Every structure is written in C-alpha cells, then in structure tokens.
C-alpha cells in the first residue's frame, strides 16, 4: 500500500486542474473511480443538506457522457478556465483513503478575452489510492455563491 501523502494529493489536484484548463476533458473522467460521486452545488444548498446539484454524476459513465455532450451536443461560446487551487486541508487520512477540503478559484476566459472570476469555493474530496494511483471517490464542488453567470459548461 502506497499510502496517501499531502504531496500525492497536491499532484492529483495539479493534474486534475491541468486537464480541465488545457481542455483535455476526455481524460477528466479518469480522475474518478467508478462508481463515484461528482456534484457541483452551492454553499447554501450544501448547508441546507440538499444532496443534488447543478451537475450530479454517480458513475464515471455519466462523466464521460457529459464530456461527449459538451463536445458534440451543447452550444456555448468558446471559453476556458484557469483554476487556482489552494492547500488541501486533510480532514482524515486512513492510509488508502483520505478526506480533504481544498479551496479553489476559477477564472473564466472568453474567446474575446473577457476574463472574470467565474467561481470560488471548496472541493470536498474523498481520494482513494486505488491500484497505486490516487483517484477521486467523491468530489463535491461547493461554490461559495449560488449564482452562475450565463451557463456552466466546462466542469469545475
């Protein structure tokens, strides 16, 4: 058992955000176990104990479907994200599974150059050292604000 260290968690976050920010969404589902839980919600809804979100996926297949839908079905103006991810706070580390809380900020860059703070919040993660590689068993993206500007196409 390799064990989960802060360094490995940092490397996972770096690879995850690099994947999205470089628009390599096809690899994005690989960061998750199957089944998994990926939810994008707001702090208010999270506090209220609502399970759902603007995005909700409980299998890796659903993540793959979202990428396919974004690539081939959905219409949105060309845009990219820049994730800035803070230090993970380790809530619990059981050796092969750890629970962490990590702040993030995402800038959205539109094709015409318009750049805005699109979202800030925390990632509530359960990471698992499955077969050596760290993967997300659970990633609940809790946005500080309940407002989404225009639409939420690319994953956070």
């Amino acid at each position, binding site marked *: 058992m390799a064990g989960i260290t802060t360094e490995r968690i940092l490397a996972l976050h770096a690879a995850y955000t690099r994947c999205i920010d470089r628009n390599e969404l096809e690899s994005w589902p690989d960061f998750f176990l199957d089944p998994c839980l990926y939810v*994008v*919600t*707001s702090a*208010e*809804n999270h506090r209220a104990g*609502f*399970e*759902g*979100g*603007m*995005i*909700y*996926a*409980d*299998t*890796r*297949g*659903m993540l*793959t*479907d*979202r990428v*396919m*839908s974004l690539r*081939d*079905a*959905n*219409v*949105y*103006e060309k845009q990219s994200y820049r994730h800035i991810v803070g230090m993970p706070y380790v809530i619990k580390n059981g050796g092969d599974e750890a629970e962490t809380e990590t702040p993030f900020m995402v800038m959205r860059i539109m094709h015409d150059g318009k750049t805005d703070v699109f979202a800030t919040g925390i990632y509530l993660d359960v990471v698992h050292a499955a077969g050596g590689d760290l993967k997300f068993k659970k990633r609940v993206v809790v946005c500080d604000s*309940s*407002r*989404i*500007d*225009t*639409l*939420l*196409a690319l994953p956070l």
Partner: protein
Amino acid sequence: MNVNVPPGSISNSPQPTEWPEGTLTRVPFWIYHSPDIYALEQQRVYEGPVWNFLCLEAEVSKPGDYRTTFLGSMPVVVARDSDDEIYAFENRCAHRGALIVLDGGGHARDFTCVYHAWNYDLKGNLKAVAFEDGVNGKGGMPKTFCRSDHGPRKLRIALFAGLVFGSLSEDVPPIEEYLGEEVATRIKRVLHKPAVVTGRFTQMLPNNWKLYYENVKDTYHASLLHTFFTTFGINRLSQKGGMVVSPSGGNHASFSFVDKSTQGNDYAAMGLRSENEDFKLKDPTLLDNADEFNDGCHMQILTVFPNFVLQQIQNSLAVRQVLPKGLGETALNWTTFGFADDTPEMKTRRLRQNNLAGPAGYVSMEDGAVGGFVQRGVAAADGERAVLEMGGSGTTNEGTRATEAAVRGFWKCYRAHMGV
C-alpha cells in the same frame, strides 16, 4: 460616458417607440434595450394587473417563516403569520426607505429595520417607532403621527397548487381566471401534492428578461438549438406533442409524450438503440424515466405571465422565477423540488435528471446564452425587427411545436399591459 450634444445638432431619428404596423409577427428590437420601456414595465407589468410568482408555499411552511423576493424591481417580503396565512409586503421601511429584511429568508417573530429600529409585524404593519415619545420629554414624533398611516405597500396574495403569487393591483382577475382553465389544469397535474424543495440556484442571464421569456415559450427552437437528444440518438420523432395558450396569450404549456403505438416508454432502451456506437450514452440510467403522472407526458414546460416557469422534464421538476436586474441582465431563480413520498429510486432519478436542465443542463444550458446572443446582435438595430411567422400569425392552441404561437401570445399579453 456622458456627451452633451446641443439640441437639434443630430439629425438621425430619435429612438423609435412605435410598434411596427400590422400583427404580432414583428417585434421591434428597441423593446429589449429602451430605458423608458424598462421603467414603464415596472409600473404597467409588475405593479399592474398581473399575478407575480413569489415563492413556493413549502418555502414558508410554518408560522414565522419568511422569504425575500422581488416584484419586478420591487423588493418584497413573503411571510406566514401566526394565523397561518401568507402575507407579502414591500421590503421598504416606511421611515426612510431602507430594506426591512436583509437576508434571503428564515424564521422571525417580527422585523426591525436596522437603520432606526422601526418595527413591523409579519403582515408588514408598522408596530413601533423607536423613541416615538422622545427622550426625557424632548424630541419624538408629533402627536399627529399615526403608525397605521405608514407602512410598506402590501400585496394581494393568491395561492394556487402550492404556488404563492402576489399582486399590487385591485383589478387583477382571480387566479384561476388569470391562469386560464387549461394552464391551471396543467399546473395541478404536476403540483398535485405539496412540493419539497431540493435545491436553489440562480442563473444570471446576460439579456433582457423578455428574451428569456420568449425563449421559454419558443417551442420552435427546442430540437434545433438543443441537440442533446438527437446527438445521442434518442428518438424524438415518434413523439406527439402540443401546446396550449391561455386566452390572454400570457400563459402557456407545451408538452410532449411518447406515442405508445410506435414505441415503448423506455428511455434507457431508446438511448441504447442508437445506431452509432460512438454516440451512445455510457450511462443511460440518466434517462430511466418513471411515468409519475400516469399520462405518458414526459415533458411539460409552462409559463405564467410575467415571471413564472414550471418545468417537468421527465422526473426533473423545478420552478423558475424570471426577474429583471437591468436592461441587459436577468436573474433566473431555479428551485428544484420533489415530493415527500418520493421513493429512494425516485430521489436518485430526480438527482440525475436535474442534469438535464439548469445552468449546466444537457438539454437547456444553451438557453442561458442564446438571449445574450440576441441582446448583442441587436445592439444597433433599433430600426429593425424580429420576424415571428412560424405557424402563421395566430396565438391559439396548436397541435404542433413547430410554431411561434406562444411567443406571439406573449407579445399580445405584454402589449395589452404596456399600451405599446
């Protein structure tokens, strides 16, 4: 930028304000960005003889519960008093006009304005004025001051199928009449028992509110802009659908149901049946639909003028409140819901199917952006107009969704209120 131009020095025509000649098949683009129209809408639409959707009854379920919302631009408090009745009043202190309630909702026995501590009951009556009798015999309000003469404006309330509507007008028709029989029936079809809120979020739309409202009523764009179902080979052709428009033109319901003579009612199977292996849902449980209303109708989108949308997309249920936040900005407040007796399977189904709608919705995320495309597209087109001739020029019920009848209905209703 403020440039002073001497009167008469510019020869181009001023901003046109006349509606183009003829029928409801033309919409002038100045209607989406005229400040005069925006101001007039507050008076004639929101404060006029309409029922504005305020919130769900479930959101103010116990005496003392309150929520804040808006009637157009007017901030509003909705509260349930100890008599178990729901009241709503302008969220504006009678003293100097500060907001009385600052947060989004909660539970209270009364409300105190933070500025000078004037106090209100849950009905919006002014109950106490700080230092009303002065201090040590000095100051205080004049003897002639009567608290009951002062207070925020109160709204009339209409409850319908767990929805709370409010109006400032004495002339607005009773809610059933306002909705129209067919639309009323289709609201009750979905809200046939008390709703339980499962989430709330706001989508900020970069466009005038009317562009979103037209979009919801525009059945023509559905399969053209939104290609999720067709991309994944989920066969829509065998579906039957239609639309009803209320006599006022302002309310509508569009719906579709699977034609059981040609298809089973099995969405998962339809997703799997796709010809192209590359475009097959990896996890078709997303579309594992339950016919919860026992009528085969898997999709119903309904509007009530001027700000309400009820959504049933398979088992994804939500209400949406459309609020103007400026000429080119609109808040779309989503509240997703289910029912108290939902089974665990139904709960999971709703959680999954809520992916279909909302800011990240597979089927409808485009609706958040397309209004902005128009707003930007018509920026300099005050003299031009949109063409609404799909399905003719009428506003009546149609057995098809290849029509702009409900959009024309919206303009019929809007123009009647606005006098434009």
